[in-house]
């Protein structure tokens, strides 16, 4: 792939967004009926489906904890989610992301309400265009909320990157590939808590502070959309005549 012009002369990004602009975010909750909870989240062309089962008993007794539930999380990319076919076997990257997403959810889920149980979160990336882990965090926490599992807050993810020396919000695949830095962040906005912070590439201290601020701003926008999606599920049901 040829290196595209990431920042145009007019200061806009390769897809016409302002540096602090999100891709169009679409959220729908409760899209599956066999799972306890589910959510479909789209950040631009990135599309992620999350389903939650449980809390439930599992046969693997040695995993269970006496004082709280365990969360088991699987992040997986579908074979057709990328340009070239992705092998369905969980890769090193997917196993790592599963752990990272699980750890970003654990601080908000009130697992102490279900001792000796397990909560299963399944995440499938349907279409990957950068920012799949952040979209996965958002989808997973909405699916948990849809399952009625008590949570202190909804976690939303958003990434900040640096391309051509400019800090940009919600980077896509091209910007991630040719940019200088990529920083995924997951935030619980009401609690003012950051539950995931990774940084790939190099940022100065000042740039980092600026990037985090940008991420928090982006997260609060997504948070608003996410809350509205949870609510609209109930607004939609009207009295049938």
């Amino acid at each position, binding site marked *: 792939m040829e290196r595209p012009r990431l920042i145009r002369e007019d200061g806009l990004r390769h897809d016409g967004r302002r540096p602090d602009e999100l891709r169009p975010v679409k959220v729908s909750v409760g899209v599956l009926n066999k799972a*306890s*909870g589910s959510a479909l989240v789209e950040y631009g062309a990135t599309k992620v489906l999350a389903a939650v089962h*449980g*809390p*439930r*008993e599992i046969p693997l007794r040695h995993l269970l904890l*006496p004082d709280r*539930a365990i969360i088991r999380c699987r992040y997986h990319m579908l074979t057709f989610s990328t340009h070239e076919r992705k092998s369905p076997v969980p890769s090193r990257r997917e196993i790592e992301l599963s752990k990272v997403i699980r750890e970003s959810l654990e601080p*908000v889920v*009130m697992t102490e*309400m*279900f*001792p*000796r*149980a397990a909560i299963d979160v399944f995440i499938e990336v349907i279409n990957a265009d950068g920012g799949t882990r952040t979209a996965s965090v958002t989808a997973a926490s909405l699916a948990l*909320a*849809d*399952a*009625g*599992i*008590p*949570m*202190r*807050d*909804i976690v939303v993810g958003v990434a900040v990157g640096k391309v051509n020396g400019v800090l940009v919000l919600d980077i896509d695949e091209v910007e991630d590939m040719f940019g200088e830095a990529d920083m995924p962040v997951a935030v*619980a*906005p*009401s*609690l003012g808590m950051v539950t995931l912070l990774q940084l790939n590439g190099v940022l100065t201290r000042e740039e980092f502070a600026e990037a985090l601020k940008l991420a928090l701003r982006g997260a609060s926008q997504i948070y608003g959309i996410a*809350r509205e999606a*949870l*609510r609209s*599920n*109930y*607004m939609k*049901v*009207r*009295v*049938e005549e």
Partner: protein
Amino acid sequence: MEAQEPHRILVVPGEAFAEGDYKISTPGYIIRAGNKYIATVVGLAQINEEGKELSLIPLEGCYVPQAEDLVIGYVVDVGMTSWEVDIRAPFTAVLYAVDFLGRPVNPAREDLGDYLAVGDTVLAKVEVFERNRGPILTTKGKGLGKIIQGTIVEISPVKVARVIGRKGSMHQLLEGETGCEVVVARNGRILVRCPNRELEDIVIMAILKIEREAHIPGLTDRVKEFIIREKVKRGLIGGEAKTN
């Protein structure tokens, strides 16, 4: 605040919906952070300004057993001296043979599968549920025991309260309007026994309607209207059905 209808707000996890000093009547669904009160599930929050009390009715969620709850369970395993019963909770429940049969059993001489086999349905009460072990059921009590007849409707456990209604009003309506026997278990399984198939269909449709529209006010009146309309549609005129 309004006097009669309590003020309800639709809340989502992480939403601070009250500030000040309140008592929390539904712990687990509301947490306190500083002097703010945060909802932890999607639900309807109710603020009682007089009693300084907050409550939250969840709209989603699984069944969490509590002592004295009436439940309908399916036997999933037959043990030496007890059965394991699925009650739609995060944990399978235990029903001891001593309790069910009312006498001690000798596992060497008796096979518990003769009394309750896998797949059988029992109406039971939760006797105890402690955090360190699974719920224990009891079938001692009027009408409890193996279910041999009727239809079971499954709804979301959090909507059970609406099928019962305030002081049992909805439950009375369902039974009174159709002449069916309706047993509402806390875990979202409802046993329906009806004099005929048409009435059974109506009750089931009414229950599913309650589940769908649980969060919209004026439910009892709508359900009553619905039942009457369905009865007219099927040629079971109101007066006739009531004599059942």
